[in-house]
C-alpha cells in the first residue's frame, strides 16, 4: 500500500488504473520474461485485451476475483508493449482510446475521495473537494449540494481544458466561478479531463522503448502475429491529401489526424481554419476527422461550426499566423515557406486580410 497525499492507493486501484506509477514501481527490477512466462495467463490476457479493444472500441470487463485483478493489473503494461511493438499509430490510438473509455466508466462511479489523488498523480491537476472548499471559496454548502458540485479546479486549469469543449455549458460565463476557481460535478470533471486521460495513455505507449531481444521472444512474436492478423486496417482517407498543395504545417496536421497520431489542439485548429478559409465546406472538414479514432462526430461538428462562425458568438476564426504556430510548437517550416507570415500565404496563393493594429 502506497500513500499518495491523504489517500492510500490500494491493490483495487492498481488494477483499475494500471498506469499509476505504483504499478510501475511494483514491476521495477522484475524481468519482463517473468510476466511472459508467468503461471498466470498475463500474456494471453494482454492479447485478448488488445483484440477486444481494437474490435469494440472499449476494454473488456474483468472478473472481480483477486486473481483476475492481478492479471489485469499486469496485462496492461504487457499490452502496451505489444501495441507499441506493432509500430502502427492507428492501433496505438484505438487501444489508448478503448483504455481511456474504460477508465472514464470507472471514474464516473468512483469514490469522490479517490478522484483528486488519481488526477493529481496522472495529470498533475490540482483539485479540491467540496468538503474542503466552503470556507476558502466563500460559498455555502447548500450551494454545493444543490448543484452537486463536488470539486473545484483553478480557473487557468479550467480554461486550458474547456476551450476545446463545444457546448455552451462549458463556456466560463455559464459556470459558477468564485475566488479563481470553477466548480464542477463529478461527471463534468471527468468529461473535462477525458481527452487528457486518452493522451496520457497514448503518450505512455509511444514513449515505450522496446528491447530488441523482446521482439525475438517466441511467445511475444506469436502473440504479435495473432494480434496483427485480426487487427482492423486503418481507414482510407476520405479526402485525398496532396501535401504539396498545403503548407507543411497544415499537411502535417492532416496527415497526423488521418493516421490517428496524437495531434495537439493547435494542429486541429490550424487544419480546420485553413480548410474552411480554403473553401472547404463544414461537412468536408468534419469528414477529415476519422470517427473510428475517437473523434465524436457531434463534437467535431460543433467545433468546426463554431470555428466557422456558425455557432456561439458568431466569431469566424482566422487561420493562426506562422508566429502563433511556432509558439505552439507546430511549425514545420520548409524552404518553400519563404518569408510568409501566415500559412494562407503559402505559394503566394491567398492574400491575408490584415486587421489594423490598434494601440490603447
Amino acid at each position, binding site marked *: 500500500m502506497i500513500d499518495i497525499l491523504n489517500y492510500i492507493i490500494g491493490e483495487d486501484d492498481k488494477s483499475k488504473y494500471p498506469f499509476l506509477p505504483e504499478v510501475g514501481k511494483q514491476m521495477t527490477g522484475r524481468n519482463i520474461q517473468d510476466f511472459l512466462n508467468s503461471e498466470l495467463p498475463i500474456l494471453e490476457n494482454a492479447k485478448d485485451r488488445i483484440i477486444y479493444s481494437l474490435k469494440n472500441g472499449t476494454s473488456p470487463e474483468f472478473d472481480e476475483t483477486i486473481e483476475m485483478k492481478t492479471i489485469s493489473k499486469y496485462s496492461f503494461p504487457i499490452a502496451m508493449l505489444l501495441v507499441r511493438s506493432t509500430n502502427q499509430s492507428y492501433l496505438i490510438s484505438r487501444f489508448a482510446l478503448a483504455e481511456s473509455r474504460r477508465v472514464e466508466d470507472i471514474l464516473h462511479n468512483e469514490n469522490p475521495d479517490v478522484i483528486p489523488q488519481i488526477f493529481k498523480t496522472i495529470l498533475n491537476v490540482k483539485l479540491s473537494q467540496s468538503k474542503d472548499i466552503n470556507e476558502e471559496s466563500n460559498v455555502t454548502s447548500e*450551494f454545493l449540494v444543490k448543484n452537486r458540485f463536488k470539486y473545484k479546479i483553478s480557473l487557468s486549469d479550467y*480554461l486550458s481544458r474547456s476551450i476545446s469543449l463545444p457546448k455552451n455549458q462549458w463556456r466560463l460565463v*455559464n459556470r459558477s*466561478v468564485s*475566488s479563481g476557481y470553477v466548480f464542477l460535478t463529478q461527471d463534468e470533471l471527468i468529461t473535462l479531463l477525458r481527452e487528457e486521460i486518452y493522451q496520457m495513455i497514448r503518450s505512455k505507449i509511444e514513449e515505450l522503448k522496446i528491447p530488441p531481444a523482446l521482439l525475438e521472444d517466441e511467445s511475444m512474436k506469436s502473440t504479435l502475429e495473432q494480434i496483427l492478423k485480426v487487427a482492423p486496417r486503418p481507414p482510407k482517407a476520405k479526402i485525398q491529401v496532396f501535401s504539396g498543395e498545403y503548407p507543411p504545417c497544415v499537411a502535417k496536421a492532416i496527415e497526423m489526424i488521418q493516421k490517428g497520431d496524437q495531434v495537439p489542439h493547435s494542429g486541429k485548429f490550424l487544419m480546420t481554419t485553413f480548410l474552411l478559409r480554403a473553401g472547404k465546406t463544414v461537412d468536408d472538414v468534419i469528414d477529415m476527422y476519422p470517427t473510428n479514432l475517437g473523434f465524436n462526430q457531434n463534437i467535431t461538428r460543433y467545433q468546426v461550426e463554431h470555428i466557422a462562425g456558425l455557432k456561439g*458568438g458568431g466569431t469566424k476564426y482566422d487561420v493562426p499566423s506562422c508566429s502563433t504556430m511556432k509558439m505552439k510548437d507546430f511549425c514545420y517550416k520548409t524552404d518553400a515557406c519563404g518569408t510568409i507570415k501566415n500559412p494562407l500565404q503559402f505559394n503566394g496563393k491567398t492574400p491575408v486580410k490584415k486587421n489594423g*493594429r*490598434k494601440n490603447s
Partner: protein
Amino acid sequence: MEEKTVNFLKQTFSEYYKQNKSRIAEPSRIHEREFGYWPFDGFMQRHLSVTNFSTFIDELVLKAPKGVYASCSYYDDPSLPMEDKGWNGGDLAFDIDCDDLELKCKQEHDRWLCRDCKKVGTGLRPKACTKCKENKITVLNWSCTICLDAAKEEIIKLNDILMNDFGINKKEISIFFSGNKGYHLTVESSTYEKLDKHERREIVNYVLAKELDLKYMGFDKKTNFKDLLLRLPQSTEPGWRGRLVEFFENYDDSSLTNFSKTEKVARIYNSKNIKFNKLFEDGIKKVRSTIDPLVTSDTSRIFRLPNSLHEKSGLCKTLCNSIDSFDPYTQSVVLDNEPIKININFCPKFTLKGVSYGPYKTQTLSLPKYAGVYLMSNKLAQVA
C-alpha cells in the same frame, strides 16, 4: 493641424518628459517588453527593446513623440518581428472607453463638421450632412465629467469581478486613467499571465456576460413552478448566477413585495406583464463591465505607458490609487498654467483643475497652457 501648432505641442511634450524623468516609473520586466512611440511627424515606431529606461526617457525628450507605449506581453526578444519574438505570457489588460457606453450626454456635447459646406451640427454623426447631403464629415467625440464617471463605474465593476470571481489580489491590479476617454486596468499575476488569446477571449466573454445562457441559471419554461423555485439560484451564489438573481430580487414591482426573494424571481420569470428577456438584457447591462473586447484578447497590442501624455488631450495616463475619489480632470492635468494665446474654432464647455472654460465660438484668447493644449490636441484650436 498647422505646423506652428504641431511644433508647439512637440515642444510642450518634450519639456514635459525633460522635467518629469523621475515621474515616469520603469515598468516591471522591462527587458521582456516591447516598447514603441509615435512621433508627431512620422510613423509609429514599434518592436523597440529597452535595456536602460533612463536612456529611453532621454530619447523621448529628444524625439518628443505624441504617444509612448509598452507591451503587456513578455517576449524572449521584444526587438524581433512579431512572429519571432517568442511570446512568454503577458499581463491581463482591459480597456474601458466612454464612447462605447451609449451615453445620453453625447447627444449634447458631440459635434460634427461638414468639410464641404462647413456646417456644424450637434449630437451623433448623421449619415450625410443635413445641409449639403455630402458625406465628408469630421466628428468631434467630446467627453465630459458624466462620460468619465460612467467609465469609472465600469472599471469599478470590472475590479469587483476580477477580485471576487477570478480571485485576483488587489495588489496585482493597477487601474489607470487612460489620459483621454476612459480607464485601463492591468493585472500582473503569474496565475493568469500564460493564458493564450482564446483563453483571454473566454475571460472577455465572462466580463461582458456574453453568451450567458438562462438555462444554466435554472430558468426553464418547461419546469413547473415548484421545481423552478428549487432550481433558481440564490443571490449569495458566486458569479453571474448570484449577480443577476440579485438584480431580479431588487426589481421594483409593488405586486411582488409580499413574496420571498426566490418566489419573486420565479414570478417575474413567469409573469405575462413583464418582458423577461428584455429585463434579463437590462440586468446584464447593469451588472456587467463594458470592456473593449478586442483589447484583452490581443496579446500583440502595446499600451500607453503610465505617466506619458495623451496626444488627444495633453492629459497624462495616471495611476488611480483610489478609484472612488479619483478626479481625472484634476489629477491627470500635469502641464503648467503659463498663459498661451490660441485661435479657437469652437468648443463645448469643459472643466480642468476645477475651473470651467467655454463654451467658446470662433475667437482668439489666452488660456493656461494645459487648457490650450487640451483644445489643440482635440483639434479645436491652433496657436495664434
